[in-house]
């Protein structure tokens, strides 16, 4: 048996105390109160008698308690000679994990981090197996264990240094959790991989070199069970200047609809400026970057943001006629996040043609339609009403977004409709408030089998089945919006057809009749609603579903470019979805990065951006679109985290830099092994328990003896 802290064995000397107390007790413990001492004379204690041990068992119990406690404190363990012998020959598994996120661009951090890597490399042993990883929001393996092992010891350091020199901080966010858990898992699985040599695996250390800034994502570690044998040697690098301010756009969609005449203000943009908690000052300035690079003429706005605080600031109007713009911030210590990019949202003008009877009343279809048209800071919708019984007007709009037909139309209107809808740019909506409208539809799509008549509705009808997979109803897929049963239909028409290729029913009434059907026409679509939305037919016009439904139809065939054209670095931009096209169409698409490089799209038509700035996407037959890519806001939160934050999440931190272990003496290694063995065996626990039991018994015995030896006189005073 060996002891981890043998100095505590000195406590064994305390065994002598009970013996001494027993042997040299001269002053009796008891005190007897007597009425008078006038007839007594003092009699000295008889040493011969008291120098004898009176209660051997009691003495032995007390000595045993002291002995057990001293042994427990000395942390005994059973020596494992084989383990000790192997210790020095065990290969250590070391993973160097270097943070290359954007925040490492600050000041001296990258140089410091490189210095740390050099330090680690220089202190490695030949037997150590090293992996070299870099991470930001993804984990990249620069040197694998196999690569390392295959090289001669002299070449290993050179390889690592080459990799290090090629490495630069990226513009990505820091996802330490995924990187750390992946590397920890791979290190923990080393035993399994090495198979027979599992026992021969030595210490496992992740040397984490990072700035551990506040925006580092750690949430993924929460649910991760940290491997017991893996320890993290945290090497933090610290920026000299702590002050870092950053800006984030306020989503323009959150802006309320502006009134007429506020165009100038509309061009002003709201931005949130935040300052780091450990900043030393809070005075900054923001301005729009001039295209010619001359910042002197730019209008600068002074702002004060206290350390740890944030403010929403209205910027000056961006430079005129610029779709893209860069907002600059100056005054803080680090410039890596001082520019944010923006693509001005263009006002989309949409038009709707209404073919139906004009009605002055407030319960007709035109009335409801005119109020359901979308109108916001990013889109404007106009409606033109025509009488389908009249000839085509000369100023008839071409390629409207939606044509709504509520009345039977003349043949010349049929031709016009066919042209518009067949071109693919326009969607038509036939509102069958009158069975005669079906005749016009039949003529338009040239389907004789199409028939319709007034349905018999008992009380009212409801929408029973809705195809939420259809793009029109997809926005209602969420259960909180999917309830259409509150819309009651008093009247509707039953629509039937034999076989129309591509026709589909999007919604049905509870009596089984189609409520909304889609018929293809050329490249376009025609929606047929078998009931009206006026109050005569239904409550649809009053429903909350009406406005998004109409908006969906207006934008149904147009390229639906996302309103949000601002993205973060390393985000996948679904270009194909934004253009509402097939991924195959984007095979020839090209994207120009802010650095001027041409980028290719992924197979699914998405684009991964890795630089902040303005990206320009060119897709054949489509308009050029510009995309603003900014740094992830989390990366700008540079206030450092405490190492305890990692400990709290279960990460086992090494108390001392583990790489120094290579310089440890054999004695220190033995001490580490002893600590490990002792930690596993935990012999101090049964020893403490035994000491406790001995003390309990000793207490009982001492009490029993004391009662027995109590003064027989039982004097009371």
């Amino acid at each position, binding site marked *: 048996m060996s002891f981890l802290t043998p100095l505590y064995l000195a406590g064994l000397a305390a065994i002598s105390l009970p013996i001494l107390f027993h042997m040299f007790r001269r002053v*009796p413990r008891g*005190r007897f109160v007597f*009425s008078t001492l006038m007839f007594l004379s003092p009699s000295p204690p*008889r040493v011969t008698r008291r120098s004898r041990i009176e209660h051997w068992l009691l003495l032995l119990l007390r000595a045993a308690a002291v002995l057990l406690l001293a042994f427990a404190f000395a942390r005994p363990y059973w020596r494992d000679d084989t383990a000790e012998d192997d210790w020095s020959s065990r290969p250590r598994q070391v993973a160097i994990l270097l943070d290359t996120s954007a925040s490492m661009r600050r000041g001296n951090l990258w140089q410091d981090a490189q210095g740390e890597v050099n330090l680690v490399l220089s202190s490695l042993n030949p037997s150590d197996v090293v992996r070299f990883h870099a991470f930001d929001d993804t984990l990249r393996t620069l040197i694998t264990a196999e690569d390392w092992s295959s090289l001669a010891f002299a070449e290993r350091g050179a390889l690592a240094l080459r990799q290090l020199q090629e490495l630069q901080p990226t513009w990505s966010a820091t996802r330490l959790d995924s990187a750390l858990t992946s590397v920890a898992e791979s290190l923990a699985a080393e035993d399994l991989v090495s198979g027979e040599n599992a026992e021969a695996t030595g210490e496992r250390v992740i040397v984490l070199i990072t700035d551990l800034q506040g925006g580092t994502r750690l949430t993924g570690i929460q649910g991760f069970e940290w491997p017991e044998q893996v320890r993290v040697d945290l090497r933090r690098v610290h920026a000299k200047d702590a002050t870092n301010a950053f800006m984030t756009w306020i989503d323009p969609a959150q802006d309320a609809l502006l009134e007429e005449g506020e165009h100038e203000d509309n061009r002003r943009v709201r931005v949130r400026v935040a300052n780091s908690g450990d900043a030393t000052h809070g005075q900054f300035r923001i301005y729009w970057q001039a295209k010619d690079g001359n910042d002197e003429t730019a209008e600068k706005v002074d702002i004060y943001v206290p350390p740890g605080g944030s403010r929403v600031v209205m910027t000056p109007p961006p430079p005129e006629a610029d779709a893209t713009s860069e907002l600059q911030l100056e005054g803080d210590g680090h410039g890596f996040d001082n520019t944010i990019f923006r693509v001005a949202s263009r006002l989309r003008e949409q038009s709707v043609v209404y073919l139906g009877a004009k009605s002055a009343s407030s319960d007709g279809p035109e009335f409801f339609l005119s109020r359901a048209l979308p109108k916001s800071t990013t889109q404007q919708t106009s409606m033109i009403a025509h009488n389908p019984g009249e000839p085509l007007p000369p100023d008839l709009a071409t390629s409207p977004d939606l044509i709504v037909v509520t009345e039977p139309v003349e043949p010349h209107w049929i031709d016009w409709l066919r042209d518009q809808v067949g071109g693919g740019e326009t969607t038509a909506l036939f509102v069958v408030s009158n069975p005669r409208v079906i005749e016009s539809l039949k003529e338009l799509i040239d389907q004789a089998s199409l028939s319709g008549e007034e349905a018999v509705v008992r009380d009212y009808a409801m929408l029973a089945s809705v195809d939420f997979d259809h793009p029109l109803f997809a926005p209602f897929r969420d259960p909180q919006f999917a309830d259409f049963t509150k819309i009651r239909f008093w009247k509707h028409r039953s629509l039937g057809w034999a076989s129309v290729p591509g026709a589909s029913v999007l919604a049905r009434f509870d009596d089984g009749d189609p409520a909304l059907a889609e018929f293809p026409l050329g490249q376009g679509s025609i929606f047929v609603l078998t009931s009206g939305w006026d109050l005569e037919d239904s409550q649809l016009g009053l429903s909350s579903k009406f406005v998004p439904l109409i908006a969906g139809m207006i934008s149904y065939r147009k390229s639906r470019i996302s309103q949000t054209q601002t993205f973060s670095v390393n985000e996948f931009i679904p270009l194909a979805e934004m253009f509402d096209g097939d991924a195959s169409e984007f095979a020839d698409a090209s994207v120009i990065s802010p650095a001027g490089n041409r980028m290719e799209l992924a197979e699914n038509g998405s684009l991964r951006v890795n630089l902040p700035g303005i990206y320009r996407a060119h897709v054949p037959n489509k308009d050029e679109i510009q995309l603003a890519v900014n740094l992830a806001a989390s990366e700008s939160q540079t206030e450092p985290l405490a190492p305890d934050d990692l400990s709290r999440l279960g990460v086992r931190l090494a108390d001392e830099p583990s790489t120094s272990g290579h310089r440890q003496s054999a004695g220190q290694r033995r001490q580490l092994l002893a600590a490990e063995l002792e930690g596993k065996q935990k012999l101090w626990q049964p020893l403490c328990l035994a000491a406790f039991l001995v003390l309990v018994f000793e207490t009982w015995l001492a009490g029993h003896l004391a009662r027995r030896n109590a003064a027989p006189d039982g004097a009371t005073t």
Partner: protein
Amino acid sequence: MARSSVQSTADDSLSSGEIRPGGRVELQSLMRIRGLEMRAKVVVEGFWTGLHRSPYHGFSVEFTEYRQYSTGDDLRYLDWRLYARSDRYYVKRFEDETNLRCHFLVDASRSMGFGTTGYTKSDYAATLAATMAYFLSQQRDAVGLVTFDRDIVDYIPARYRPRHSHRLMVALEKTPAGEGTDLTVPLARVAELMNKRGLLVLISDMFAPIGSLEYDLSLFRSRGHDVIVFQVLDPSELEFSFSAATQFHDVETGKQMYVDPAAVRNSYRERLEKHNAAIERSCRQLGIDFRRMATDSHLEPALAELMRIRRREGQTRKRFSRQAGRSRG
């Protein structure tokens, strides 16, 4: 007439030194009775009123003797019929049944708080005093109480009143708190307080220097008091039967002394006996009755002792009176 028969019966029993079986109660049982008055009542059971004679000769109903008339005698008590027969002036003397004035002097020092019998010397002394006080108050005698340590603690003058004995019991039930025993000062004070002759019953462990004890007690005797001393001691004080060597703590002085009982037992006994012998000798010289009471001894003998002493005193006085009368005649 009934009274005289009771008296004669009691006298017979006292003279033979027996206690009636009905009056004996186990001491441990007695001391477990909480109320002191009840304890006294139990002990006094069997003793009745009128067991003692008055030490005074006055003019009462019972004639004792004739005395020749001298100038200044009250002419109301001149026996005119004897004058007619003998032509001499004689005055009739009667046995005066005056009430006895008895004071109990009870030691209340802390040394009285010691006891190994389940109760303390103080408890025993209080019971003893209460028993005798109750007995006397049953006789319509005036009973008073003085408790003392270094000085007088409580003083209740001798009276015969309905609630007076209760007051006495309450005072006796107080826990002894006095620091030390010093008989000189309290006895001198008591001697000053009591200007009328009576009986004094001193109950104490007498653990005090006896240097001036003889003088202190002689003060009472010189003033005509009759004195009885009861020395109350715990059996363990008499025998010093302790076995464990330990630190002995003087309850009064606070002094500590390591004592091995086996080693000092003999010397202790010798010193105690010497001390007690000195006290007895002083009492004897002064004509004071002395009795040592171990706290495990019954109380009735003490009561019998009291009665015996009183009876003897009564006879002695009567005899002296007669002798005086004869010599004058």
